[in-house]
């Protein structure tokens, strides 16, 4: 079982940072709402607040790492210029998609939207984390601010969802591949 270096980075970007961020979004929305909107007293608030702060910081780190690896590690491989005379498009995903009318839309709509909308996720979650660091449970007393923060976390979820969906589909139709091969395990012949 082996994987190329480019495929490995795509996995790290999508399944590692991106998917983990998406999974964390629903938890952040629920926990932010519960912690700052609940009228009933909750247990040890200081440890809960500390947990939520660490959770939001981790999400911000995940979101920034996802967009930075996407833009500066994988995207250059995706959009690599086709050398003159090249006939095999397998190493040039953008060119491969654009070579057929049935797949061109995945680039024209999918990648064109993904490459920009994805950045709203780290910007929004960083803002949410900062506001929570500043206000903590006191957000309960700032209804409008709390609503705004929750709306931005929801928008970050949508942005990451769009980017994740198109990322998965792009990788399905034109996977980023090439580079040195990493052997994960040696298969046994049957």
């Amino acid at each position, binding site marked *: 079982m082996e994987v190329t270096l480019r495929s490995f980075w795509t996995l790290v970007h999508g399944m590692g940072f991106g998917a983990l961020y998406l999974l964390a979004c629903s938890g952040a929305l629920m926990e932010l709402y519960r912690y700052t909107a609940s009228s009933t007293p909750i247990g040890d608030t200081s440890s809960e607040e500390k947990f939520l702060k660490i959770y939001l910081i981790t999400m911000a780190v995940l979101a920034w790492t996802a967009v930075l690896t996407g833009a500066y590690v994988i995207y250059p491989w995706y959009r690599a210029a086709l050398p003159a005379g090249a006939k095999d498009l397998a190493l040039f995903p953008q060119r491969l998609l654009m070579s057929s009318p049935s797949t061109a839309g995945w680039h*024209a709509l999918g990648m064109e939207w993904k490459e920009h909308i994805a*950045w709203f996720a780290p910007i929004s979650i960083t803002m949410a984390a900062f*506001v929570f660091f500043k206000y903590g449970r006191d957000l309960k007393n700032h209804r409008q601010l709390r609503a705004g923060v929750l709306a931005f976390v929801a928008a970050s979820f949508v942005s990451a969802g769009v980017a994740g969906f198109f990322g998965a589909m792009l990788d399905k139709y034109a996977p980023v591949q090439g580079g040195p091969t990493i052997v994960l395990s040696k298969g046994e012949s049957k």
Partner: protein
Amino acid sequence: MLSAAIGSLALAILAIAGNKSLAIKNTLNFYKPTGPLSGVTTVAIFVWLLTWLILDRRWGKRSVTMRRINTVSIGLLVLSILLTFPPVVDRL
């Protein structure tokens, strides 16, 4: 929150500008392997952080009407999302 929305809008506007003008596209090409996306996002992040700093200095110790800021911020964020959607960009 408002600065995050302004930064997001800056990203959408820069992406459109780069799409429509070759000169802007070339100017935004900060890192050749990534292309204009590198400039679009770097400038947008700079706009976001600068706006954040300015707003913090101006409003940091003042009481502001959150309802209006919320409405404007969420409106700008939704507009930013729409302005990055290729079918919308193509109609501009």
